[in-house]
């Protein structure tokens, strides 16, 4: 059963997790696809939760993160944002630093 507590568990037990429309292999939205591709370039293991797997995932995710759109990228338990922010963070080199820190911890 998906609820905000389960979202929190998933976020805290994965160094990198993306809540996306569609799966890692088959994204179903250009923004989700873009976020998955960007994170994939980091060469670290990451989890993708397909919000279409269960109707409770999306409302639980929004309740937990207070962020209204998907994809949502979490690194080290912190919500970074959607694909636009992840792209900017990657271009600035900040994403790589956050990921290094998450995997070092």
């Amino acid at each position, binding site marked *: 059963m998906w609820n905000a507590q389960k979202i929190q568990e998933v976020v805290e037990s994965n160094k990198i997790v993306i809540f996306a429309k569609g799966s890692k292999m088959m994204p179903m*939205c*250009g*923004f989700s696809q873009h976020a998955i591709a960007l994170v994939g370039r980091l060469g670290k293991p990451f989890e993708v939760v397909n919000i279409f797997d269960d109707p409770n995932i999306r409302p639980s995710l929004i309740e937990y993160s*207070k*962020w*209204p*759109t998907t994809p949502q990228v979490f690194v080290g338990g912190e*919500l*970074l*944002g*959607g694909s*636009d*922010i992840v792209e*900017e*963070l990657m271009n600035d080199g900040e994403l790589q630093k956050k990921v290094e820190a998450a995997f070092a911890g």
Partner: protein
Amino acid sequence: MLTVEAVQSMIQKAFPGGRVAVSDMTGTSDHFEVEVVSELFEGKSRLDQHKMIHAAVGDHLGAAIHALKIKTRTP
């Protein structure tokens, strides 16, 4: 469906004096690209800057607006 002008006007209201550019990414009036240059972003994280844009379009996000590509900058 929302027009580019409608989205522009909603966001412009939230950022008086700011520069707001909106375009329709797909020609379907539901995927918009937004660029906002405003001093209100000063000192705020990217996450909070995007939240300000989300707030400006309110309940339209996830309804009439399916997707919003956002770029925020300070002047």
